[in-house]
């Protein structure tokens, strides 16, 4: 790894933190639970890492335990992602349905 790539990664890291702070400063209470659940589903992005980890074939070596740990990560991350977005959607539909109905 070049130093410049590390600096770039840390830059992205720092800017994304500021972005997160700015994105959701004012949120009505109705949306707190859906927002928490939606943000939680986004943190399931670690699914990308889990995909790489389960695919041992992508690496030169082959160590089975690593693949199975990756597999466990993949299952948990997928539950996080699919369940998270689905339940957020359910909550939002309830709120939205309400507002259309008035």
């Amino acid at each position, binding site marked *: 790894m070049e130093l410049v790539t590390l600096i770039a990664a840390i830059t992205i890291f720092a800017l994304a933190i500021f972005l997160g702070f700015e994105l959701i400063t004012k949120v009505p209470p109705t949306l707190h639970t859906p927002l928490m659940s939606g943000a939680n589903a986004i943190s399931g992005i670690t699914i990308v890492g*889990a995909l790489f980890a389960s*695919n041992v074939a992508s690496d030169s070596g082959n160590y089975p335990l690593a693949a199975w740990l990756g597999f466990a990560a993949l299952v948990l991350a997928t539950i996080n992602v699919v369940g998270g977005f689905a339940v957020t959607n359910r909550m939002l539909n309830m709120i939205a349905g*309400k507002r259309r109905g008035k």
Partner: protein
Amino acid sequence: MAFEPEIWDVGYLIASILFILGLKKLGHPRTAPTGNLYAASGMLVAVVVTVAQMNFGDGIEGTILIPVGLGVGGIIGYTMAVRVQMTGVPEMVALFNGFGGAASALVAASEVFRMINNGTIPTDWLTFHVAWIAIGLSTLVGWMTLTGSLLAMMKLKGGFEIFGKWYRTPTWGPEWLNYVKGIFLIGIVGLIYMSLEEPGNQDYVIGIIVLSCILGLLFVLPIGGADMPVVVSLLNSLSGVAAAFTGFIISNNVLIIAGSMVGAAGLVLTNIMCKAMNRRLIDVLFKSFGGSDREKVTRTKVGSDPDEVAMICDGISKCVIIPGYGMAVSQCQHQVREFADILEANGCEVKYGIHPVAGRMPGHMNVLLAEANVPYEKLIEMDRINSEMGECDVALVVGANDTVNPVARSGEGPLAGMPIIDADKARVVVMVKRSLSVGYAGVDNDLFYEDKTMMLFGDGKKMMTELVSSMKEL
């Protein structure tokens, strides 16, 4: 290991943009469903791009694990999301949170064990240090998030079952426990340092995992149920941070962006909730509060019956309904709404006073009432409803306690300074509650014993149903 400028990074960029737009839109009522859709599409793009760039090998690990993992996880996640009752949502978010953290930590474990056992530990100084420090931090945050979330989930449920026997989730945390937590943290940092010195030794990694799991439990153990919304929100933030560290391990920008964004967003929400309770985050986390030593009930109060309450409610002009966790537990939001409908049919103005931390999660009450088709405009935030409480004929408190406890204004005890809904300013207060017992903060509520207070003792759903039928009979 290096960030090569590859075509795939464009795909990750698209995913990142979708996440940013999605999170932004999730913060506004009108655009929230679109926001969720954007974020979900971003995730789909990220997964497709990742799978597309892989070179699948032979053997069972290379071809079977990924579709099976996606399938199994997808089915479990979807089923849980569709089946869950709206009251169970806070627990489920806590559980998903834990899964997210665990997934990040497992990726870190997979990477480190693979590199150690295949002898592919990076030789370059910078690459090695970045990878090992990121692995250490991801392991720490990830496992902590898992065990902390599981304990938080049990605290939200109030207890857990072992072999059919019900145990209350303990809340325990003497002052010295904070030093123990500090020692654990120092120990983990020490282990990360030692793993840098001796990279081939996996015992250090296992040590970090064990200590982090215990630290997660110690972290949540002293915090009472009343503060669980804050904790779940903070754990949500941590699961994002774990994902970001994992991004450093596998050198992937989309993990870093999405992870740190969620980390910051979770912290914002955590702060909003702390402000609502007028407490500092530091106090919530490090001063044991509420819960375990419940005061005994020393005074008594004669309960009223629904017919009496129905008579009082006949012909009033303004009623404020103040829901709490009890409404969530007994699932009586539909009965509450029916009650409001009857009042409105008689020309009474009905509003709902929503305390920011009513229930076990911010917005908990809003979601439940939305499910019962209560118009959004009738849900009034605490500050605005308090200015109207003086003109209110009847305040109906359904399963709330600490959030209407006048002792909070007095400046003493655990509730001191917490903003409350001024239910006691209404001419008559009707409280639907199972007993006179204390709330999560463990403080007796003087409001119960006031002359103008009518207690309806019983399960929320049962009492509200009886109240509705009494109203109809009038």
